[in-house]
C-alpha cells in the first residue's frame, strides 16, 4: 500500500526541485546566436551558420556543450573564442567550420579543456594563443594550414597538452607545437610530410 505524502512534505520536495533548477551553473539548453558570449553552462540546441565575426565567445568557469551541432562562418574570423580567468572553460561535442581559426584559446590566465570537437574547412583548426589548454580526442580535418597550432615564443605562456587527437588532410602540419605530448595522437595525409612537430603522431 502506498502512503500518500503529507502536503508539507510535498511542498518541501517541490521547493527543492525548483531550487535545483534555478541553481547558478546548472546547464541550460539554449538557442544561441552568432556573437553570443557564453558565461554559464550551456548545451546548444541549434546550428549556427554564416557567422561573420566571432561565432561564440566562452568566458569563465563554464562548459559549452555544442551537443553535436555545427558553428559555421564566412571564413574570416574566429569560430569559438575560449577564455577564462577563474576555473576552466570547457568546449565539447561539436563541429566548427569556415573560420580563420576554428577554436581559439586566448587570455593569459586561461585554463581550457577542448574535447570531442571537430574543426574542418578553417584556416587553422585549433589554435592556442595563450593560457593552459588540454586538447583531448579532437579531430582536425581539411583545414588550409595547421590542424592544431600551439607554439610558445619567448614571453608567451602557452601551455598546451595534446592527447588522443587526430589530424588528417590539413594543408600544413597536423599538429604544430613545442608544448606537451600527452600521447596517442594520430596524423596522416597532411601537407607537410613531417605530419606533426613537437608531439609524436602515428598514422
Amino acid at each position, binding site marked *: 500500500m502506498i502512503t500518500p505524502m503529507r502536503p508539507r512534505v510535498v511542498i518541501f520536495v517541490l521547493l527543492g526541485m525548483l531550487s535545483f533548477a534555478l541553481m547558478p551553473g546548472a546547464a541550460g539548453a539554449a538557442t544561441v546566436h552568432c*556573437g553570443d*558570449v557564453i558565461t554559464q553552462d550551456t548545451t546548444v540546441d541549434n546550428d549556427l551558420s554564416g557567422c*561573420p*565575426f*566571432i561565432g561564440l*565567445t566562452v*568566458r569563465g568557469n563554464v562548459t559549452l556543450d555544442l551537443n553535436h551541432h555545427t558553428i559555421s562562418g564566412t*571564413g*574570416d*574570423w*574566429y569560430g569559438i*573564442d575560449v*577564455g577564462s580567468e577563474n576555473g576552466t572553460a570547457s568546449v565539447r561535442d561539436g563541429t566548427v567550420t569556415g573560420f*580563420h581559426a576554428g577554436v*581559439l584559446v*586566448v*587570455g*593569459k590566465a586561461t585554463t581550457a579543456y577542448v574535447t570531442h570537437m571537430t574543426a574542418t574547412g578553417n*584556416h587553422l583548426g585549433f589554435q592556442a*594563443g*595563450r593560457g593552459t589548454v588540454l586538447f583531448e580526442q579532437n579531430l582536425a580535418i581539411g583545414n*588550409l*594550414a595547421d590542424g592544431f597550432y600551439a*607554439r610558445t*615564443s*619567448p*614571453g*608567451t605562456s602557452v601551455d598546451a597538452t595534446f592527447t588522443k587527437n587526430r589530424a588528417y588532410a590539413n*594543408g*600544413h602540419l597536423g599538429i604544430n607545437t613545442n608544448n606537451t605530448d600527452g600521447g596517442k595522437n594520430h596524423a596522416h595525409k597532411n*601537407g607537410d610530410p613531417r605530419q606533426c612537430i613537437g608531439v609524436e603522431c602515428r598514422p
Partner: protein
Amino acid sequence: MRKLLGPLTLAVALVCLVLTGGQAFGASVQCGDTITQDTTLHNDVTGCSTGFGLRVTGDDVTLDLNGHRVAGDGVVGVGLDHGGLTLRNGTVSGFQVGVAIAKAVAYVTRVTATQNGIGFELHHGNAVFERDVATFNLSDGFHAVTSVGDAADATFLRNRADSNGALGINTNTGTGSAKNHAHKNGDPRQCVGVECKP
C-alpha cells in the same frame, strides 16, 4: 522677432550641415563599436575583453586613432573587415592579434602594435603596411602567411619590428616591400619573405 527666429534657426542648421558634410566623424568610441564612416578618435578605448576592440568596415573608411590607444585582452584589437579601409596614428595593445585584416583592401600606417600575441596579421585581402611599429608582441610582429586556398597580398614599407617573440616580419606574400627594419626578435632570422635591416 519671432518671425526672424524660424529662418535664423534654419540657416544655422544649414551652416552646421555644410560644415560637417564629408568631415571625419569625431566621437566617443567604445569597445566593440563598428566603424562605418570616417572617424577620428578623441579618447582611448581600453578594457576590451571579448571579441573585437573595434571593427572597421565599408567602402573608403578611415579610422584615425589620433594618437590614442586601443587596449584589452580580447581577440582582435582593431579588425579591418571587408571594404577599402585605412587605419592610422595610434597604438593597439594586449590582444591576441593587434590589427587583423580580412577580405579588405587596407592601408595601415603609423600604427604601433605592442604586447599582443601577434602585432599585425593579414588573413585575406590586400594590405599595405607603411611606417608601422611592432614591438614586444609575443609571437610575430607582422604575420602575412598564405596557404593554398587563401588569397592575400601584403606590402611592407618602412616598418620597424623590434623585440617580438618570434619573427619581426613573417610573410610569403610580400610584394614590392622595402626599407623595413627588424632587430632583437626571438627568431634569429628576424624577417622571412622580406629583407630587413637592423
